[in-house]
């Protein structure tokens, strides 16, 4: 053993613990991504008791560290705007609240319209968005060209810009929540895999893990790409499909695009980080069911072709790195946020596609649900029963390929 071993060397991340699991917790949260950590922080704020977050890998190893980092609340439905604008307001003060810089950058978010139809749709959403007090503006082609001088003119018909939206650093956000939760007593157990969930008398009673058994009356499924499998351990069916998405980062460049940009025409989104790299991803026209996190050549070529189409100068810029991640997508692409019917104490926080932006609100609202027993109005539309009743949420401004065969 080297004499150089430093204190703290056994941690996986500041905030994780290497202690053994306790035999009893007041709540066990499965998944140390933004959903799980954010919820743990909010429950601890409310003095919920002894809390554990368990993850089969390191915190943020799933979609929380693989997403496009973009933040907006200017959607087209009152359900989405309600939830995500609650989140946007939390993003504005998150670094101060968590005492850690998550590099939230209020650079604006442009939803680009490349056809007349897309422009008219953007215009038709404005009234609803403004009724929620969103800072949105409809831009004509000249205004978009001025905002993004490097964008290919033939891609521009107009767009909606939300001036106080933007992007943040996804890893820093994971670290910020992990630290803030740990400071408030939450135990974060990395590399701890859940192998079973005990259910008795219509409610959860225990969680089995590779590092021991836990008694608990509250279990939260915030397991991201593995949420469906985790729910099945409790006998709960979650109607989601698992899809692989891919993203890339270029070599660093001088600043050339300020806002986050989303383009339904190329099914893509990107932003330039504070480090100068362009980070973004594109989606295939038909989603690819896969739980693999291997990147594909087809995915790399799709991004290369489409981003060069959007920003021609990128033809001469190198892709440094390319990766993939998975999302769990529901039939209406909205998340599932509720207590599981018929399984008391088993809560679902999954089915996210816009999870990065939604996490701060989801954590607070789910904590309200768990501590008070009733869902706040902004959370209520996202119950799982909508898939049985057919009352799906209609949201038309997403840059996501609709899937098929949900819950099959």
């Amino acid at each position, binding site marked *: 053993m080297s004499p150089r*071993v430093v204190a703290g*060397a056994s941690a996986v991340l500041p905030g994780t613990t290497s202690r053994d699991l306790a035999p009893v917790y007041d709540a066990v949260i499965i998944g140390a991504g933004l959903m799980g950590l954010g919820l743990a922080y909010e429950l601890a704020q409310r003095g919920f008791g002894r809390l554990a977050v368990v993850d089969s890998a390191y915190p943020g190893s799933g979609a929380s560290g693989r997403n496009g980092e973009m933040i907006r609340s200017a959607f087209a439905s009152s359900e989405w705007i309600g939830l995500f604008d609650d989140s946007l307001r939390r993003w504005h003060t998150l670094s101060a609240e968590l005492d850690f810089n998550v590099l939230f950058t209020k650079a604006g978010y442009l939803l680009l319209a490349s056809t007349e139809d897309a422009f008219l749709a953007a215009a038709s959403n404005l009234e609803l968005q403004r009724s929620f007090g969103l800072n949105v503006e409809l831009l004509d082609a000249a205004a978009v060209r001025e905002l993004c001088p490097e964008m290919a003119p033939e891609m521009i018909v107009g767009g909606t810009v939300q001036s106080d939206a933007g992007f943040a650093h996804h890893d820093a956000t994971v670290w910020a929540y992990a630290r803030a939760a740990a400071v408030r007593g939450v135990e974060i157990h990395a590399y701890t895999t859940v192998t079973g969930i005990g259910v008795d008398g219509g409610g959860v009673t225990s969680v089995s893990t590779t590092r021991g058994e836990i008694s608990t009356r509250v279990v939260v499924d915030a397991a991201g790409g593995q949420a469906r499998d985790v729910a099945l351990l409790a006998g709960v069916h979650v109607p989601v499909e698992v899809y692989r998405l891919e993203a890339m980062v270029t070599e660093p460049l001088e600043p050339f695009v300020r806002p986050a940009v989303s383009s339904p025409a190329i099914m893509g989104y990107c932003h330039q980080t504070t480090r100068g790299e362009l980070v973004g991803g594109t989606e295939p026209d038909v989603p690819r069911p896969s739980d693999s996190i291997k990147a594909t050549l087809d995915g790399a070529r799709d991004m290369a072709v489409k981003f060069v189409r959007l920003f021609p100068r990128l033809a001469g810029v190198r892709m440094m790195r390319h990766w993939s991640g998975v999302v769990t997508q529901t039939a209406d692409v909205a998340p599932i946020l509720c207590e599981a019917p018929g399984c008391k104490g088993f809560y679902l926080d999954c089915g996210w596609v816009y999870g990065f932006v939604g996490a701060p609100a989801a954590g607070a609202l789910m904590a309200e649900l768990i501590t008070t027993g009733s869902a706040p109005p902004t959370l209520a539309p996202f119950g799982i029963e909508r898939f049985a009743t057919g009352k799906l949420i209609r949201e038309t401004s997403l840059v996501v390929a609709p899937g098929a065969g949900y819950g099959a």
Partner: protein
Amino acid sequence: MTKTMLCLCRDVSVEDVTRAVSQGYGDMETLKRFTGAFTGPCQGKTCLDSIRRLVAELTGRSVDDVPAPPGRPPVSPLRLGTLGAREEP
């Protein structure tokens, strides 16, 4: 004050890695994201072995117990115009 550089792409020194591991970034995956090592143009080809060895020393593990983060394509940075070019008919 002298510095010993490890990652030339991202300016990560022995001192930076030591500080990060002391703070709790003792897992190669979190260390990578916190320091930026392995995320520059060389993608770790220059510094991966040295940093693994240092992390092994700082955490009292053998180098074999310090797994390297999975490599990401492309092996060498590639121009988007080249990557997206259509094949000749």
